[in-house]
């Protein structure tokens, strides 16, 4: 069984909500990045979303843009991201999802990517700018290699469209909480519960909610209706300020509060 499915099932069975941590691979350099990731995985992260740095991250806010830039300047490449996953797999069994922009995967070749990623220990791939309609070419190789294509759903996505884009997805649904790019925000949208109910009406996949969660409190609120909470920019900022572990712990306990 794919590690994502296993993790999600375990969480459900334990009555817990998941913590999905996004970190840009290679930020600010390969060694420090690996150390950060290990710290996160050591302190309560359930699923790792590993950002593959891209020169033009059009869906990201300033924090992740800067992280990508640092990672690229630090020499990170897609093959080296896979090497990193391989090293992490020796010590960790949390699911790992590659998070990136389509051009890098396209250039690498979808077949090759699916094979190499599976081989390294990746469990799913999320491509920010590869919507359902364009994902056909990538779908088969992923499936053949046991990797999930993680679908994104947004507040602008209609029910009809949800039905379509979730039809052959796996792992979990990444629900984008805001209309906007990645980055910390101070609020949680009031209608989140309703929105997620709408999503659940068309899929049985667990739902991870992200974009904007930056505090334990927000995490609590989100976790009340979601199956998992994704935190990215806030972790990156904390990591660069030397307080990654504290931040991971804050989010973790925020999430856990939701089910007390």
């Amino acid at each position, binding site marked *: 069984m794919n590690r994502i499915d296993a993790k999600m099932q375990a969480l459900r069975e334990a009555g817990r909500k998941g913590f999905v941590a996004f970190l840009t691979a290679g930020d600010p350099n390969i060694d420090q990045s690996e150390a950060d990731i290990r710290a996160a995985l050591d302190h309560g992260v359930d699923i790792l979303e590993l950002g593959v740095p891209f020169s033009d991250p059009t869906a990201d806010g300033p924090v992740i843009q800067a992280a990508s830039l640092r990672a690229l300047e630090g020499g990170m490449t897609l093959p080296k991201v896979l090497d990193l996953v391989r090293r992490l797999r020796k010590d960790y069994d949390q699911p790992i999802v590659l998070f990136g922009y389509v051009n890098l995967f396209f250039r690498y070749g979808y077949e090759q990517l699916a094979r190499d990623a599976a081989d390294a220990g990746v469990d799913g791939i999320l491509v920010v700018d590869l*919507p359902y309609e364009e994902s056909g070419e990538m779908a088969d190789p992923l499936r053949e290699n046991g990797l999930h294509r993680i679908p994104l759903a947004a507040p602008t996505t209609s029910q009809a469209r949800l039905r379509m884009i979730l039809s052959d997805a796996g792992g979990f649904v990444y629900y984008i909480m805001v209309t906007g790019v990645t980055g910390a925000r101070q609020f949680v949208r009031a209608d989140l519960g309703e929105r997620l109910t709408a999503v659940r009406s068309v899929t049985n996949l667990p739902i991870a909610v992200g974009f904007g969660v930056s505090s334990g409190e927000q995490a609590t609120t989100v976790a009340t209706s979601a199956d998992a909470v994704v935190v990215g920019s806030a972790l990156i900022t904390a990591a660069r300020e030397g307080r990654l572990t504290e931040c991971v712990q804050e989010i973790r306990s925020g999430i856990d509060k939701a089910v007390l």
Partner: protein
Amino acid sequence: MSMSDSGHFGIFGGRYVAETLMPILADIEQAYAEASQDPAFQQAFTQLLETYVGRPSPLFFAQRLTEAWGGAKIYLKREDLNHTGAHKINNTLGQALLAKRMGRRKLMAETGAGQHGVATATAAALFGMECRVYMGAEDIIRQAPNVKRMELLGAEICSVESGTRTLKDAMSEALRAWVAEVEDTFYVIGSAAGPHPYPSMVRDFQRMVGDESRRQYMAISGGKLPDAVLACVGGGSNAAGMFAAFEKDTDVELIGVEAAGYGVGTGKHAASIVGGQVGILHGSKSYVLQSAEGQIQNAHSVSAGLDYPGVGPEHAHWAQTGRVAYHAVTDEEALDAFFSLTRLEGIIPALESSHALAEAQKLAKEYGSEAAFVINLSGRGDKDMETVLQIMKEKHESD
């Protein structure tokens, strides 16, 4: 108006954007499909083109340029005479009309040379809409007159400080901003690039440039067609508008001219077709300047409007099928052509358009004096004067 249903041109095109934008793109596609069938919409567009833009723009026989280049007769399609000084206004009026039809009161745009920003700000003023323009910090400096125009027109200009601080980054930033404002803002893309339906829509909104040229040349020549049609290619909107009208005239050579910057061999250029590989940037699959791994590379061109590492997907398709030949000319060649037109004909061309002129100069002798070229003079060069005078000064000092 023709476009493929799936938004693909052969293997190119498509709609590679964040999920958040997918529904709005479908809405735009739908609204555009309806509008393009609606005579009232077409009539409103045509009327604006005539009384506001000043269309049809003339086709001018450049006699002294023809003599100087010693070959093919040079005809210039005078898009520089359009209101706001370039072909860009054709498209922004079309999109603004569509935005109005869709009930939007806010426009946003990216801009490189500033022409598209000015044209969008202009359309916004005309329709009483708000307007925000994303422009690279570098371009804000080198295209200062257009920045002033946008300010006066009441547009808000957002200086983009990321990346090379040019058009690519302005477009990335515009896409980011759009995601956040997708509910009430219409994104007016300035070239035949971006996600479907923009490449087709922008081409259609520029197609009168080619249709008029074709009609005008035939009227002048007694029913003949030109031997070659040339246009510069940044994102590819002026060229697409031109080529679409001549696409089926298989005897007419179509030549797209990219910016070779310091030379395609130097790596410092903006020739995505001539010097790039297939990739995905800003919403569509096309030729892209990129590293072997797929990181987008910085473009370089003296011309802000061509200084972009991608190109519209229909051009990629035309290049692949061979219907259009793509060449590239250097900064220096373009500057030479800039001066030739200025000094021989009293027309100061945009640096973008100067690339098409430079290629025509290269080919004129080979084609000979029986041949005729129609060149799209996509814009006027007022915006570029500071750049050119600065280069002249530097040359002068290093002499």
